[in-house]
């Protein structure tokens, strides 16, 4: 299945890209698997995760077409 990945703010600069697309074979793959596909480093502890624009965590299972976003703590407006 295909997963859309987005990065924001300082993490976007660190990753060198705004978005990515990853293909996962495993059924019920989690966000953690997506992170491992986009980075060779462990996810920094302060990074937040959203799936389909709702906050969640690395354990969330995904389905095809899900949008996964990684970003640093928000600062407010």
């Amino acid at each position: 299945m295909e997963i859309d990945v987005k990065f924001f703010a300082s993490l976007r600069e660190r990753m060198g890209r705004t978005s990515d697309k990853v293909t996962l074979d495993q059924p019920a793959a989690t966000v953690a698997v997506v992170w491992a596909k986009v980075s060779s480093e462990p996810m920094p502890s302060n990074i937040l995760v959203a799936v389909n624009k709702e906050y969640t965590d690395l354990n969330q299972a995904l389905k095809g077409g899900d949008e996964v976003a990684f970003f640093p703590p928000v600062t407010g407006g």
Partner: protein
Amino acid sequence: MKVVVQTDKLDPYQAITHHETTELESGKHGGVVSFVGTMRDFNDGEDVTAMNLDYYPGMTEKHIEQVCQEAMEGWDVMDVLVVHRAGDVYPSDPIVLVAVWSAHRAAAFDACRYVINYLKERAPFWKCEVTTEGKKHWVEHNSEDPGAAKSRLKSA
């Protein structure tokens, strides 16, 4: 209820007037409380010449709308308007507008404060400041648990 995040310049009072004219029945609301936040030219003692406000299109609006909905359920108010800047902003630019219409001014004050507290503390924006020395740096936020921060906000 209307929530807009825009990279265009924000004219807050034109936005209030437009919303009131097009969305509210005249002669009913009695009062409107608004907060307009503008960019300051300093932060933590350093002079700031510009700021880039990053956001997550779709998610940012959705979360602000949820908080506006909470405000409309929590207080006896008629309508809430939020307009927030994104992109490059400069000192004295208006960044955020929250306007709340109500027949009861206490409700309007409380609801407006609730929404702006969320926006300033927890809304999904990321600030990148440029100082007079040309240094660019992402503003850090200490709170890492949006859930915990939200309950603090509610009990405040």
